[in-house]
């Protein structure tokens, strides 16, 4: 039995976890391979549904400075290190896979125990902050495609084996019975359906997204009487919901595990610019207005612009209610429903799993 431990760090979104789950699912499809997750995330719902063995730690870098953690901050990193050591001892992984962020302590612990390690690296700029020691300690670095940048950074050239793969997304069948799906969510198939997706919803700073979108949709509803809106605020969302609660025809959810089929059934999606969201929108081809979320390690505005260059269905959304309302009305007048400009990405997780297993075979 080959045990693969997937270490995932996340704080303000669910992208890293989502990708690790996709890879875990692909790994589980290989005979004799058992995936185990070690996640440091604020997620509480997404991972539970997948049924993989899982260790859960808090997202270390997302701990608020004024929280009760402060008192034990002095022992904080030792605490994580001790737990990492225990996890490695308990399951004795044949491979440790990091997603984009590599913590020194778990890397060195695994290295001391001669546990092979690999890296799935989503954001190319991040690589500059990873030490050459760590990069050279990887058996393989898997680079999932991103609309943003395709070049291999200098840091990686000549250091380690690089494997490219298609975007790594959780599996989607590509088939949607639109009427059935909409009815299942209490929506009317004959009405104009807009999905608002705030991704993980875990912005650390005040985020005006729902204020802008709520204001815009109220304006739009004066022109489109049969508008219905399904809003998913994100499982990490903790702000007030006032901004969206007054939207006519509203269906409000904190979290839905699988939004892609709903995207495919909608006339319009209003979303953010994270890796998973953008690639899912490209995959589905639904008309989309994307408003970037501010992230410390990602440039969502750039990704949205790059996606808009490559595919007709993605546009950058105006960040004012009036401007966004005009865009929404334009899109809904001439919908590109069901149209996809890009190849459908279904193979990324499988390609990554094969590359990871090949590295230890």
């Amino acid at each position, binding site marked *: *039995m080959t045990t693969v431990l997937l270490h995932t760090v996340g704080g303000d979104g669910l992208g890293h976890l989502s990708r690790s789950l996709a890879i875990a699912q692909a790994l589980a499809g290989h005979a004799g391979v*058992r995936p*185990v997750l070690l996640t440091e995330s*604020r997620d*509480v*719902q997404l991972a539970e549904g997948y*049924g*993989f*063995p*899982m*260790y*859960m*730690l*808090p997202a270390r870098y997302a*701990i*608020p400075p*004024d*929280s*009760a*953690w402060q*008192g*034990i901050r002095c*022992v904080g990193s*030792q*605490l994580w290190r*001790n*737990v990492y*050591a*225990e*996890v490695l*001892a*308990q*399951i004795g992984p044949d491979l440790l896979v990091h997603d984009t962020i590599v913590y020194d302590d778990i890397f060195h612990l695994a290295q001391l125990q001669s546990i092979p390690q690999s890296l799935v690296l989503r954001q190319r700029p991040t690589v500059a902050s990873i030490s050459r020691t760590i990069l050279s300690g990887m058996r393989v670095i898997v680079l999932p495609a991103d609309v943003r940048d395709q070049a291999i950074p200098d840091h990686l050239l000549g250091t380690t084996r690089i494997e490219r793969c298609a975007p790594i997304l959780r599996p989607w069948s590509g088939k949607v019975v639109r009427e059935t799906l909409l009815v*299942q*969510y*209490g*929506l009317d198939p004959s009405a104009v359906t807009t999905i608002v997706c705030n991704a993980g919803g875990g912005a650390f700073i005040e985020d005006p997204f729902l204020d802008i979108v709520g204001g815009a949709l109220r304006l739009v509803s004066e022109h489109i009487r049969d508008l219905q809106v399904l809003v998913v605020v994100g499982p990490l969302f*903790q702000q*007030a*919901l*006032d901004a969206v*609660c*007054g939207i006519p025809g*509203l*269906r*409000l*959810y*904190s*979290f839905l595990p699988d939004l892609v089929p709903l995207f495919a059934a909608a006339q319009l999606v209003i979303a953010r610019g994270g890796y998973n969201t953008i690639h899912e929108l490209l995959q589905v081809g639904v008309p989309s207005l994307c408003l970037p979320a501010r992230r410390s390690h990602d440039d969502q505005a750039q990704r949205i612009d790059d996606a808009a260059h490559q595919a007709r269905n993605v546009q950058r959304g105006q960040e004012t209610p009036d401007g966004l309302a005009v865009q929404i009305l334009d899109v809904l007048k001439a919908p590109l429903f069901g149209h996809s400009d890009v190849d459908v990405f279904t193979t990324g997780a499988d390609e990554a799993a094969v590359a990871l297993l090949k590295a230890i075979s």
Partner: protein
Amino acid sequence: MPGRILFHAINHVGLGHLNRLLAIAEYLREGCALKQCLFLIEGGRDLIQSTDLPWIQIPAFGDFRSERWLKWFGISECEKYPEGITRAVAQIFGPDIVVLDTVLYKPVVAGIAGTSAKVVLVGRIGDLLRRQLDSGIPEFDRLDLVLVPQEEAEISITDRQRLRKIKCRVVYTGPIVRDRGGDPQQLRRTLGLSESDPLIVLTLGGGGWNFAERLLMSVIEARGLILHKVPTCKLVILCGPHFTGSLPKTDDFVLYVSQFEPNVGAFLRAASVVVCMCGYNTMNEVVLAEVPTICVPAPEADDQLARASDYERRFPRITTGCLDPIVLANQISALLMEPRRVSESAVPTDQRTKTRQLVCAEFSRLQTGDV
């Protein structure tokens, strides 16, 4: 003055154990300057993440989460995992006091064996604790203090005799319950409701009992009759993080559905009527919220039937209900048609203050060795 406190909450079908320990951490923080605490949890991340209290999750066994491990690993391997993580945490954290809730979970007690920590059990009387007391498990000898989160008068003579078997100090504290705040008026505005709009809040606790799904279905089936009598009525469903049944979609009646809300207190106080099961925390929270409540006890929970009749007798706003949608609809409609203002704010009762002071005093005595 408590120093480092390590809490362990076993949590499989509800959130009661974790909620109670969070209440104790909050009491200690309010009352006697808790220095450091850390929670070992087995679930309920959404609950603890709604506080700022530190946590580490240990693998859980003995419930639905076991399957994910046992599919890939042997049982003998799995059984060592919680103990190992507990030991790894305790070595670094160095607790002065370890607090367990109701269950003396062997892997955790074994994991702290190498420390000199004093051990407190918060022991709610129910079948879980009775079984452990009757079988005389050796872990009881490790205890330094037992806090019973009930009034002594609530406890039967037989149970009091059981508790006398414990060698350490046993203190009856009264209900240990959190006051999960939030402004009910603001919440109503957020939900698009005026102060007078009739609102049913259905809370299913942690949502782990199978009965939770049946209660939800009964309330949904009662919809037509309720709307016939109170046409503007809305329903909010708080199904709990462990709930695995299918949820109704939001529509003109079902206003909002949520797997978890950190400010449950605001929902309870914003309600015209609460429909719930009879878990320890929910019942004490509805008492605190002073809201008309229909409680439908889950027979699969060891203590809910007795609690339902006890609370119905003691608190005039609480009525026991059943799964029959017609009966339920009539009970809900009757309460909805009674005029009632939404509570202004959460006012901690004298009972809560008294309990907090008692708990703080017991922890201080434990720390100074004056037990």
